[in-house]
């Protein structure tokens, strides 16, 4: 017990032993209370905008701004959800969700599968050009996707891919996000090589080693990769903006943009209702896989 705990900021040094007395004990408890009240209040302040959005979705749409200062609706309604789900120009919001889901799931499966096998090759096998590929992987990690926006668009247009989901899905199935290769490589490096060798002696080919030895052991990295890939694909706005033109093919990100355009009227209640629904997958994934996410960020330092 120490007086140091009174000061919450450098908290981890609190375990320096000082003589405990009744007085310090009280101060210790008071310090903890102050700490928790402060951290809790600050945390609530941080997530207040999101909570506000969710509650506003339940307010009658004409009162959303009149009562913006108060959090809990005085009058609860589900109208916003009903109106919002009707969507736009005859396309329901469920369709938008389905579009996003389709894109995000296929792109994620493709990214992780292709990244995993590439990571295996780069970290376990010796072959000509391996070094060059390693550098290429680093380049693809460093090269900002936005910078390639214009040339990629021109290139996909030449391939006849604009106006389709192909640019949103196919490139990802070819491991173009070096980050995921890197993530899985780091993990494979931690698996003892003796396992590979044992499998090889038992007559396993290099492909067999990947599928039978490596794949079952890299599950944690694969899960982490899937979570991040899914959330990034789900939120992806720029490529949808570039390549998807038909309203019924819009993913959620683009559809929400429609809701917020002044030209298409402003049913704020419906907009907040759909915005709340659109963040649901990310929030749920976050709640279920918090440990994986935190680990993934802490060890690899990715954005997000």
């Amino acid at each position: 017990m120490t007086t140091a705990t009174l000061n919450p900021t450098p908290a981890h040094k609190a375990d320096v032993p000082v003589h405990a007395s009744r007085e310090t004990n009280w101060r210790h408890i008071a310090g903890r209370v102050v700490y928790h009240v402060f951290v809790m209040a600050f945390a609530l302040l941080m997530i207040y905008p999101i909570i506000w959005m969710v509650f506003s979705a339940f307010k009658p749409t004409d009162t959303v701004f009149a009562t913006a200062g108060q959090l809990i609706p005085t009058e609860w309604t589900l109208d916003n959800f009903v109106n919002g789900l009707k969507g736009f120009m005859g396309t329901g919001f469920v369709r938008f969700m389905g579009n996003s889901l389709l894109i995000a799931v296929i792109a994620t499966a493709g990214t992780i599968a292709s990244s995993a096998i590439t990571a295996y090759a780069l970290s376990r096998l010796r072959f000509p050009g391996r070094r060059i590929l390693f550098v290429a992987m680093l380049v693809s990690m460093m090269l900002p996707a936005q910078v390639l926006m214009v040339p990629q668009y021109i290139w996909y247009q030449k391939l006849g891919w604009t106006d389709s989901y192909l640019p949103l899905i196919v490139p990802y199935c070819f491991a173009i996000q070096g980050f995921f290769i890197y993530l899985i490589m780091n993990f494979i490096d931690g698996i003892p090589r003796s396992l590979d060798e044992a499998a090889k002696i038992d007559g396993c080919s290099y492909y067999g080693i990947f599928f039978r030895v490596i794949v079952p052991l890299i599950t944690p990295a694969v899960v982490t990769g899937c979570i991040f890939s899914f959330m990034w694909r789900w939120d992806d706005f720029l490529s949808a903006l570039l390549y998807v033109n038909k309203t019924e093919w819009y993913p959620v990100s683009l559809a929400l943009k429609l809701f917020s355009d002044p030209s298409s009227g402003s049913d704020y209640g419906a907009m907040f209702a759909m915005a709340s629904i659109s963040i649901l997958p990310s929030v749920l994934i976050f709640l279920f896989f918090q440990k994986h996410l935190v680990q993934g960020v802490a060890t690899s330092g990715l954005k997000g």
Partner: protein
Amino acid sequence: MSQASAVPGRRLGEAGVQFKKQGRFARFMTLERTSGVVCALPFIIGFLVFLLVPILLSFYYTLTDYSIIGEAKFIGIQNYLDMFSDDKFFKSLGVTFFYALVSTPLRLVFALFVAMLLLKNSKVSGFYRAAYYLPSILGGSVAVAILWKQMFAADGVVNQVLGMFGLETDFAWLGNESTAIWTLIILGVWQFGSSMLIFLASLKQIPTELYEAASVDGASKARQFWKITLPLLTPTIFFNLVMQSINGFLAFTQCYIITQGKPRNSTLFYMVYMYDESFTRHHAGYGAALAWVMLLIVGLYTGFLFLTKRFWVYDEEA
């Protein structure tokens, strides 16, 4: 496994079953170097087709007058020369630098502050971590951008809350040249979660003995922070600084949805300007040139940060 890994999978079947008695092809396929190339094939194709081709192609297009629809007309370095007389280019460059160089340090200070707060272990620290990280999880989404736009509207939450404290209540945050950019900066700072987690991880690695020794010597908490915590964190700060600045230079969605560069281009992010030039005004050649300039800037800036590294980043090997 999806289509990408199906190729080597099929080959495995051939090698393993059909050609057990060593056909020449099968033997070739199971060599280590062949296996390596086969396994890396998805990435080899992906890199060549989806990264290298666009890079080369784009460099060519920077030397042309190209509207995406018509033919590309070779004009030499005219696109690059045009930038010097393009006010919006300089304006957007200035805005982007201001945004990246202000929001990144603020975000890191905030992230470090919260990480220090959360270092204390308690039963609810998992909950705290989640609450502080949540805004970053949702940060890139259109939903949050829309929310932000409404919060800072003249009749939005921010003004209502200010009104409760008896302050001016109909200020147009997004309509004012001097405040609009700050709303975007605040949004950027609010998403401090991933930097915070990285700080938290490296704070936990600082050996407690250092602090014990320091407090035995009578060093105050503040002194311990400046003399132990901060120096040992510099590699992490450096890493965060590089990553987050690059993100700052390349920000797009927030600006595109919240302000669209308004008012009077005071929030015109470089990426939004590039998008407009390329796809709204159909100056794809010029847009490609803008992209190359940004790539150069990001490269130079990162290089500059690496140069400063030895003056302030603590290196254990040194």
